[in-house]
């Protein structure tokens, strides 16, 4: 290493730091101390230096911590293996299952489930796919539930009115719990009513008529009820005034509707009938009107 030599000015400045000669009588004082037996251990009598405390470097501290943790882990693992902590806890592991496992043939692949073929004469294929299956299932559930009820002797002991109330409550319960939709329930009830034996049908018609009468009374519709009886033309063109025979009325009304236009009175009576009719009658009427409209459109198209 090249030493930066001092310049002449620097040397001159350094030389100006003169040291005075040794104090007079230096050797005399030294010899006096020697003669007095002074060993010159004054330094030893000086105060003890405070212990120098060094800050541990982060690396050393980290290594100590890691070493301590590793040592502790090793000690605890050794103690556990030696059974110091008691019997080892049994833990089922995957390796044991593998030891006990046998090599077997793979199961044969299942045949893919083919989608059910649905009626080919469907005009609107999108409306026939899965919802149709669901409807039949939902309707079947309602039918099954009602059939089960019907077989119950307690149900058989009820009056027709009470039976209607109980059956309606059951159906509503099914709809409320989400097992069937409202439309499925309606379809099932309609099918049941259609396939019922004549005695049941008569009882149902009677009960429905009673309910209808009560409803009309509630609406203050005594006059309306009289209108129903005086609406002669409608009895020809619309379904039967009695709500018990919607299918018959439908078949009778269809040719009339298809044959010509309704008069104003007939239309007004039809509207009134629609307002006061039961849901089944209203549906039959709507179907009749729809068919009539379709016929008219077909005729125009021709």
């Amino acid at each position, binding site marked *: *290493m090249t*030493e*930066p030599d*001092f*310049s002449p*000015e*620097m040397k*001159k*400045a*350094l030389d*100006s*730091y*003169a*040291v*005075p*000669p*040794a*104090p007079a009588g*230096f*050797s005399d*004082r*030294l*010899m006096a*101390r*020697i*003669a007095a037996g*002074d*060993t*010159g251990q*004054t*330094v030893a009598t*000086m*105060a003890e*230096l*405070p212990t120098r405390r060094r800050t541990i470097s982060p690396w050393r501290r980290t290594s100590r911590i890691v070493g301590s943790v590793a040592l502790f882990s090793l000690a605890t693992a050794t103690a556990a293996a030696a059974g110091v902590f008691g019997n080892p806890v049994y833990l089922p592991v995957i390796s044991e299952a593998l030891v006990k496992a046998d090599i077997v043939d793979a199961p044969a692949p299942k045949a893919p489930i083919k989608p059910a073929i649905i009626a080919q004469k469907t005009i609107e294929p999108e409306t026939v796919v899965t919802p149709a299956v669901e409807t039949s299932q939902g309707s079947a559930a309602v039918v099954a539930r009602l059939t089960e009820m019907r077989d119950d002797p307690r149900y058989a002991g009820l009056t027709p009115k009470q039976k209607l109330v109980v059956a309606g409550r059951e159906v509503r319960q099914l709809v409320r719990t989400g097992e069937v939709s409202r439309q499925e329930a309606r379809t099932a009830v309609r099918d049941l009513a259609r396939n019922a034996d004549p005695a049941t049908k008569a009882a149902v018609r009677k009960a429905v008529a009673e309910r209808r009468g009560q409803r009309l009374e509630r609406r203050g519709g005594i006059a309306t009820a009289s209108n129903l009886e005086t609406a002669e033309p409608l009895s020809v063109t619309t379904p039967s005034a009695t709500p018990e025979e919607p299918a018959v009325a439908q078949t009778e009304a269809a040719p009339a509707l298809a044959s010509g236009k309704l008069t104003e009175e007939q239309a007004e009576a039809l509207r009134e009938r629609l307002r006061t009719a039961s849901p089944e009658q209203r549906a039959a009427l709507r179907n009749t009107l729809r068919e009539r409209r379709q016929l008219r459109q077909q005729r125009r198209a021709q």
Partner: protein
Amino acid sequence: MMQQAIKVTQENDDELVARIAARDHNAMRLASDRHANMVWRVAYRMLGDASEAEDVAQESLLKLWNHADRWNAGGPGIAPWLKKVTVNQCLDRLRRKRFASDEEVPERADETPLADLQMEAVETGQAVKDCIETLPDRQRAAVILTYYEEQPNHGAAETLDMQLKAFESLLFRARSSLKGCVERKGVLEQGRARL
């Protein structure tokens, strides 16, 4: 010629130490008269204080008196040995002083003869002294031994118990620091102006 002189000095030193070991007071006074100034000089420059310098100088010579019986003949001689002892004692004192108190050492009146008369002349010297005192202890020792005591690098490194390369590095830093300090104090400009 030079080697012969050194050999003579060694022989003299060895004889002198042998007499000192034999508790010859005259021999001890002779050694003190020969080396007191050198020991005092080093101690004074290291400590910057006359009183402490005298203490250290006397302690160093007392060590010679006390340890003369363990003297190894054929060594470098009394002067290098005393220089080493003095420098080490000074370093010890400086370290103890630093640990004992962080306060500045109070200025003491210069007790040297004719101090008042020399005030004007030593203005520059005082600035240099201040700069030397600001150096770290070992750098201070390196400058004093090599520049003021004209000791060769290897001798100074031996005195400080250092490897030669380490000592040269230390000396380089010491000289750079001292030069910077003296320049900051404006001593060199004054010297140039005077010249």
